[in-house]
């Protein structure tokens, strides 16, 4: 059955992987022509920094979207984890990191419980939880800018190995682990099954409730990891961390090819989506396009890719 590489059937079969690759290539080429500094070593390091924490958070969100749900709380959990780190590293030393990760895991699990047992639609549950989390973050930080003085903590993300910062290796490692988790383990297969057909998954004996809680907990945990490493990368932060992240984050997962209808795609796809979105973001910054223009462009891109990737034959009811 396998056709020759580059035959028409092969192209059609792999369209989901090919078009993000083409778009990524076109973006690099376009920004390189517009601004020759784009692919110099310094510019490249900027791109790596911009995509690494984003990739970690996007991996978690990918699992949730694969399952057919949505997690709106990722940016606020990331913010809370980052702020917890910077505020308690002086008091608890490195124990601030497990503290921040545990809190993130707990918030994620709470989202899962709200969906699985209390029957709150995931979008509204995570919206409500994210408001509560923002409230806690504001209460803790009092709205001030906090500076990270611990150099060893910062070294977690900013040590250079083979010319690339450590956060890049963290991100690629987590991406590889997530891909393994999604494709090679029962956990991943169950997630795909729930996204593909919830009722069939339940009838075939999958504990849907438990799986939902686990996936949301994973999403919260990875958002926390992203927050901790992002704080190490930035060396300080305020309430503004992650504030404009939700639409680009969602767009990067969907642009990679994980459709909102659930059951398809996966973290391996998300890498390309993250490259497309974050490199575009950096490229637009280099061309001096402000945040407002970025919001308009990413909002429209998010709608376009979501409609393009939606599997309209399989799903019957969309709310």
């Amino acid at each position, binding site marked *: 059955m396998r056709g020759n590489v580059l035959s028409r059937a092969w192209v059609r079969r792999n369209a989901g992987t090919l078009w993000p690759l083409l778009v990524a290539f076109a973006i690099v080429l376009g920004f390189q022509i517009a601004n020759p500094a784009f692919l110099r070593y310094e510019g490249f390091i900027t791109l790596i920094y911009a995509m690494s924490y984003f990739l970690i958070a996007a991996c978690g969100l990918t699992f949730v979207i694969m399952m057919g749900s949505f997690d709106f709380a990722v940016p606020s959990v990331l913010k809370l984890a980052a702020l917890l780190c910077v505020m308690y590293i002086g008091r608890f030393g490195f124990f601030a990191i497990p503290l921040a990760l545990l809190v993130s895991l707990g918030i994620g699990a709470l989202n899962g419980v*709200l969906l699985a047992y*209390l*029957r709150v639609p995931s979008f509204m549950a995570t919206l409500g939880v994210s408001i509560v989390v923002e409230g806690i973050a504001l*209460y803790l930080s009092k709205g001030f800018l906090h500076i990270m003085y611990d150099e060893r903590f910062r070294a977690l993300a900013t040590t250079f190995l083979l010319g690339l910062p450590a956060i890049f290796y963290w991100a690629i490692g987590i991406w590889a682990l997530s891909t393994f988790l999604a494709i090679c383990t029962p956990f991943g297969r169950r997630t795909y099954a729930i996204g593909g057909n919830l009722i069939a998954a339940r009838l075939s004996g999958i504990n849907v409730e438990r799986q939902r809680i686990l996936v949301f907990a994973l999403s919260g945990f990875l958002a926390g990891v992203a927050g901790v490493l992002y704080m190490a990368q930035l060396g300080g932060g305020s309430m503004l961390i992650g504030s404009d992240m939700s639409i680009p984050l969602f767009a990067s997962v969907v642009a990679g090819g994980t459709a909102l*209808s659930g059951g398809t795609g996966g973290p391996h796809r998300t890498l390309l989506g993250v490259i497309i979105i974050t490199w575009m973001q950096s490229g637009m910054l280099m061309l001096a396009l402000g945040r407002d223009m970025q919001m308009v462009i990413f909002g429209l891109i998010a*709608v376009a890719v*979501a409609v393009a990737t939606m599997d309209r034959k399989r799903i019957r009811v969309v709310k």
Partner: protein
Amino acid sequence: MRFRRFLAPFIANPVLLVLVGLVVLFSLLYPQRFLTGLNLTTILKQFVTLTLFALGPSMVVVMGSLDLSYVGIWMLGGILVWLLAPTLGPWAILIFPLLGLGTGLFIGVIHAKGKMPSFILTLCLLVVYWGLTAILSRGYSRAVKGYEFITAPLVPYIPTAFLWSLPLIGGAVYLMARTRIGLYLYAIGSNEEGAQLAGIPVTKYKIIAFALSGLFTGLGTIILFQHLGGSVPVELNLKNVVWPLVAIVLGGTPLVGGSGGPQRTIIGALTFSVFYRGLYLSLLHPEILQLLVGVLLIVSIIVGARGIKGVEIT
């Protein structure tokens, strides 16, 4: 027997009990401050804001979908009024219903034909409108003069915006309770496939629902624009997006759709205004207030979703 008849509305709308309870509680806690003319007028003002934002979207929620674009229509419309007022004069205010109707039709077509989940579609559109507002206004909040007559005081203690909102509320309630459109929206909300099989053109009525939601939001924002100070912010405040949602859910319209509607939303908006105003008098930290609103949203969704069976929630 008479006692039971007295209780009937409270059993049908449990939120009325909460409302009465809150009023009694806050009157006892702050006897000097809660039941004063100034405070009640403030509650009424807040009620107008919430109702006018929530009226249109509550029709969409009846259908089981969500429409978050209302704040976007208000912000972008306000800036368009500022841009167009020099050329069109006072007629520029009519950009609000036009923009609302256009937005609603756009959302409806993309949602119904493209099968994109409505919450994420309207969220993306909200962000796009926010960005456009900031670009068009070049980053400054722009005030427009000349529409003060909309909120000129007529009756003491009662904000004129409240009087203006009455016909809109009446229209929305009539539409949902007495017309074919309302009936079909309830049918789609309780069982979309069933409605399709019963011969209701679901796609068409979905588009109509979003168009109506946009139109009501557009008409409401004419009043709101002046009610909220004759200018619009260029920064999106998430609280403006969430509060009307709380009003809808608190009123008793479950998010899975099929029951509730604008008449419930009014009660929800009133309850939320009393709740917020009472907490405001308590001198809690603003962050804690925000946190409590989030908790209220989740709790009211949980309470509203009880007893609903046979719907798979994602």
